[in-house]
């Protein structure tokens, strides 16, 4: 077991510096606006960098040169602004000869992977859930030596832009499996997953009048899944009413709603706060769970 108290400072490599030295990284870590500005998601960015540092991947970030992919603009209908952003980013990436991009944001992932090629930007784009799965498969990450999640309840909330949009359902679950926790599936999961309510630029506006916020509906499902609350699960809409998956007799304290998207993070964390369950339920990104299981936090 390594000395947990030993720590070293990280100087995150910036692409412009690498280029000045004539170096090129193996991967470009696309941080995304939430990863760079949102206080909560900055912790995910830092956790992911710790993992990159720990396994010794040759990576770099764009730093100040990164700009919004244009996802929220495109989905709100502002195609002009989207394409301006896209072509600016493509010029930056191509200027550095970037081949492989890894990002912790499913919206950035979807946009760069699917919508940039038609505008001339062709890269291998990997979401961090897939990247973490690869590290686990290669034995570079073992989730040993840090916080133990054994016996704790974790339910994974599918991000629409990872799941239905790009058919990535197994990678995040494979990452969670290494934690040796009690993984519970919500009834509305995978292809039937319920949106957190923030996609399609909803993150940046108030919801239209209705009788509930989408994130509350989703949080209630997540909490009922973690609690094994059969009544709530039976009355969920939008799914065939099958028997709810009840958790085994594991410890309810320290339950986790796992996410893999900055918008889902905000919405689910707000939902947990709204339900006054912050005491026993926390919302974590995959990278945070892995970094802390691996004992990388310092």
């Amino acid at each position, binding site marked *: 077991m390594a000395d947990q108290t*030993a720590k070293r400072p990280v100087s995150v490599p910036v692409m412009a510096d690498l280029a000045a030295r004539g170096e090129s990284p193996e991967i470009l870590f696309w941080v995304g606006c939430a990863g*760079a500005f949102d206080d909560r998601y900055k912790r995910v960015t830092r956790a992911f960098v*710790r993992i990159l540092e720990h396994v010794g991947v040759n990576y770099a970030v764009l730093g100040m040169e990164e700009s919004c992919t244009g996802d929220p603009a495109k989905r*709100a209908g502002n195609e002009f602004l989207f394409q301006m952003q896209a072509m600016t980013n493509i010029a930056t990436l191509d200027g550095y000869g970037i081949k492989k991009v890894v990002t912790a944001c499913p919206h950035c992932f979807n946009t760069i992977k699917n919508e940039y090629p038609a505008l001339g930007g062709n890269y291998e784009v990997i979401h961090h859930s897939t990247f973490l799965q690869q590290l686990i498969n290669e034995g570079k990450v073992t989730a040993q030596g840090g916080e133990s999640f054994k016996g704790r309840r974790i339910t994974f909330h599918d991000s629409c832009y990872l799941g239905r949009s790009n058919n990535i359902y197994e990678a995040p679950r494979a990452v969670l499996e290494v934690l040796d926790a009690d993984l519970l599936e919500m009834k509305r999961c995978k292809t039937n997953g319920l949106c957190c309510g923030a996609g399609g*630029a909803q993150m940046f506006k108030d919801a239209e009048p209705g009788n509930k916020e989408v994130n509350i509906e989703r949080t209630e499902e997540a909490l009922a899944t973690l609690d094994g609350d059969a009544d709530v699960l039976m009355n969920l809409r939008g799914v065939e009413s099958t028997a709810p998956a009840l958790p085994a007799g594991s410890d309810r304290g320290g339950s986790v709603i796992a996410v893999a998207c900055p918008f889902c993070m905000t919405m689910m964390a707000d939902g947990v706060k709204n339900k006054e369950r912050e005491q026993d339920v926390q919302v974590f990104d995959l990278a945070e769970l892995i970094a802390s299981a691996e004992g990388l936090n310092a």
Partner: protein
Amino acid sequence: MHFSIQNLLFLLVALAGFGLFAWQASRIRANVLVGRDRDVSGNVNERLWKTLLVAFGQQKMFKRLTPAFLHLIVYIGFIVINIEVIEIMVDGLFGTHRFLQFLGPLYSALTGTNELLGALVVLAVVAFWWRRNVGGVRRFTGVEMRAWPKLDANIILYVEVVLMGALFLMNAADLKLHQLQGAVLPGAFPISQFLTGLLPDSVGALEVLERVGWWAHIVGILLFLNYLPSSKHFHIILAFPNVYFSRLIPQGQFSNVDSITHEVKAMMDPSYEVPAPATNPDGSVAAPASFGAKDVDDLPWTNLLNAYSCTECGRCTSVCPANLTGKLLSPRKIIMDTRDRLEEKYNAPLIFDPALYGKAAKHDPQEQLDKENHTLLRGYVTPEELWACTTCNACVEACPVNINPLDSILEMRRFLVLEESAAPNSLNVMFSNIENNGAPWAFSPSDRFNWADELFVASKEELGVRS
């Protein structure tokens, strides 16, 4: 063979039935083709494979087992029983009687299967009726499920029962007729053999009843065929091309607007040559198309085909996060509105004229609708519906015939933003943040890299020390 006036009459009825249907189909084809171009060429094998799985194989129906099972019975019944329609056509035209009987044991298998399937179809239809009218299935309700869609759904069920009833009447009468005459009717009749007791014992009456059953079955089918173009039941035909032409790209990938690509490229690179604008047949420059969609003819033709392929099952709406939480948005309504508007502006269907029921009937509150302009956007679909969408693709995933409501929602959002500058104010703030700060929030771009300040990693000596 006994040629008679009946054969001539049948010929005329069949010609009229198929002719009228062909005319109606051509009008629908014309309606679909008012849409904008969308390239669906290539990938034939992939498209055929998808059609085989999703349309023929009903793959996506099986997300919900009960209706999938019921629907499968009616679907198989429809296909198999229609083999008997071939026999009816030949008998009707050439005066033969049950001409397929030369198949021998195979004919018994065919007629026997038909009867069993017919009985199962009746049971399934009763179950469908119960689910729709009594069972409280939530997705059969909603603002868009007004008088006509509800009536239409039930008419389809009633007609199916009548058609099966005619089949049984024909078989039972024929069977009893042969029994009374001491003859053997070729074929097997596992259901009708129990129905003969209900029929009169007079040969004359049975001959009439057999003819009544025969004519009712085939005339019923021809009438139903001509009802389809006015009904949601048209999906039995259009589901196949609709799936074939549906998108092959990832669901998260939204279309790029090419004209905007040219503009942006020209802005960024002055040497970029924008392609010459499209010209009309007379050589004049065509008016540029609007950005996004205000009316049905601004949508890609595939979206209009979507509208005619919809069977209003409501799976899309039942999984829509906005609809689930009480917002106005209902993906099914967007699709139904598209068809109604298309039939209002262009070729109307024979039986149902949307104007009779009124577009306004489908929107609450109605004061949001633009009463002056009946365009799809604002006349049928309001901005409030469109802005409630989270683009989560649940509706697209749920549709058993690969209809894509999200595509039409995005096209209308584009019109609102790019042609009318009518985005909600908070979204305009987001747009200007992206323009000015390169982020959707009002943060200073110079703070973008602050997350990396004072970052430490626990150092495990044996692992990963970067040089």
